[in-house]
């Protein structure tokens, strides 16, 4: 089936997209499409829509684990740094204090843990989302501008099982989608 598609279409397809006016319409359309077996759906929305992850069957983001790992690395790195510089590389007696002790090491350990965990959260988010990415087929939709303003685009992606552009477009139309458009991966865009 996929093979036939690739042969039939001269350009690679990204999917078929339609515009919906409210979050409720969008969620209803997603549920209906998923019931009909459309597994590869995406939505472009101006704000995070409550219930969208569940409707699309998206799994909980694993970023928390990345932040935890980075935080632990930051904390242990900080402890190692303070021990090595203070007790091994450059031991100097200051005010009769021990070269290394846990108590005075707490602030720097904490700060470095937070610093690394924060970077992991933000850079991990960008990596998981494939950003920065300055070109995407979704930008070709004529109503794309509204997806960052007040409308909601629902995309049936072409890599789903048994994808057929005409059938997907028809399904979106019957569910109330406006401006149903087929989006191609590459296109000679007039500048």
């Amino acid at each position: 089936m996929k093979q036939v598609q690739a042969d039939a279409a001269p350009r690679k397809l990204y999917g078929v997209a339609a515009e919906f006016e409210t979050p409720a319409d969008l969620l209803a359309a997603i549920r209906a499409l998923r019931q009909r077996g459309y597994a590869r759906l995406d939505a472009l929305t101006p704000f995070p829509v409550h219930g969208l992850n569940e409707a699309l069957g998206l799994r909980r983001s694993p970023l928390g684990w990345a932040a935890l790992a980075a935080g632990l690395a930051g904390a242990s790195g900080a402890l190692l740094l303070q021990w090595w510089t203070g007790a091994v590389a450059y031991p100097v007696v200051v005010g009769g204090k021990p070269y290394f002790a846990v108590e005075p090491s707490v602030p720097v350990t904490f700060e470095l843990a937070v610093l690394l965990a924060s970077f992991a959260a933000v850079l991990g988010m960008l990596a998981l989302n494939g950003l920065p990415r300055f070109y995407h087929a979704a930008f070709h939709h004529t109503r794309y501008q509204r997806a960052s303003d007040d409308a909601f685009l629902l995309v049936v992606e072409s890599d789903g099982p048994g994808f057929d552009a005409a059938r997907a477009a028809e399904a979106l139309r019957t569910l109330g989608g406006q401006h149903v458009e087929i989006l191609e991966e590459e296109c000679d865009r007039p500048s």
Partner: protein
Amino acid sequence: MATVSQPAETPLVLGGLTPAEVTRRVAGIVEQKTPRAWWAAFAFTGSLTLVLFAMLGYLVTTGIGVWGNNSPVGWAFDITNFVFWIGIGHAGTLISAILYLFRQRWRTSINRFAEAMTIFAVTCAAIFPLFHVGRPWRAYWLFPVPNEWSGMWPNFRSPLVWDVFAVSTYFTVSLLFWYLGLVPDLATLRDRARTRARQIIYGILSLGWRGSARHWNHYEMAYLLLAGLSTPLVLSVHSIVSFDFAVSLLPGWHATIFPPYFVAGAIFSGFAMVVTLMVIARWFFGLHHLVTMKHLENMNKVMLATGLIVGYAYAVEFFIAWYSGNPFERFAFLNRALGPYAWAYWIMVACNVLVPQLFWFRRIRTSVPAMFVISLLVNVGMWFERFVIIVTSLHRDFLPAAWGMFRPTWVDLLTLAGSFGLFLTLFLLFVRFLPMISMSEVKAMMAAEETP
């Protein structure tokens, strides 16, 4: 849809704005022709910023003696200004992170604004210790990086080094948090851009954000994580700043109440600064529908609460000074209230303890001119608090032979004024080029309020 059972509370967005109108109003501020008043304000604050640079240049080329610092008052305006500006920043993180975790929806209209304030305030703060070291070109010695003295490392047992880590982490994480929040709004500006330059600049800054459901899934997790990380971070920063004092053995500084006392004071002064700036921006840009009286009133309530904590801390300091039985402690505090800097002490008490009590009255809490004046007075009071803590504790040493007085020089005064210039200039650039209200968050909040 719009008339679904409205909760009894006052709505947070007035005037029945639709999401499209939110975009138009907020993005419109960035897209309109630069107002004349903006140029006038920018010319003024820009000149003040040049004064700051001139003063710093004079300091670097001449020496630290151009400031009024002396022995015994080795820390004076510089550290006062440092603690003052760091404290201002704390309200931004409190609003963006702590109120987010507590699901306080009213934070949504003001968090972007307050986060910007945090970053600019910390920028101003960082200047002072940097130049107070005397040789700012050696500032990298503060960090554990190899330097020309091979094998020399920072002393990690010193609170001053903790401070370097706390402030630089705080600045970096605040910047990340702010930028993360900005990305979807920058995409909105990119999509609305009419000129090529705007398309390219906002296009690059928005990183190609397209609002995909999968993006939002990771994005919201990243936002939650940063809120969760920033919350203990902001508490740690002013605690560590207070360690600069509390870990020393000086009467007036060596007190276990310092960390919570400093954190409460920081939030107090930060909220005052948010109110000062927000009242002006709301009036000038006509944001009454998005920044409502409820927002302002809530901020005034926070000021009232934290002001009470600060007042309590002042009282406890005196009690402990008496209760400790330590004559040096007793002297330090009596000297604060009755000594040569008593005028500064009583300005502090009047502005921080007495004036905010007016916020008990609803009429004052909801009066824009009244809250503007009170917030200015709180800022004055909180600056004097740091001045009192630092200078009165230092100027009377243990031996009367080592007593001294601090008088600011003209360089001290102009550097302080110049730091306000830098802060306000950065703020003006922010309101001109970036959306000062988080459009995506306001729209999400409106959607959530419609379907509770």
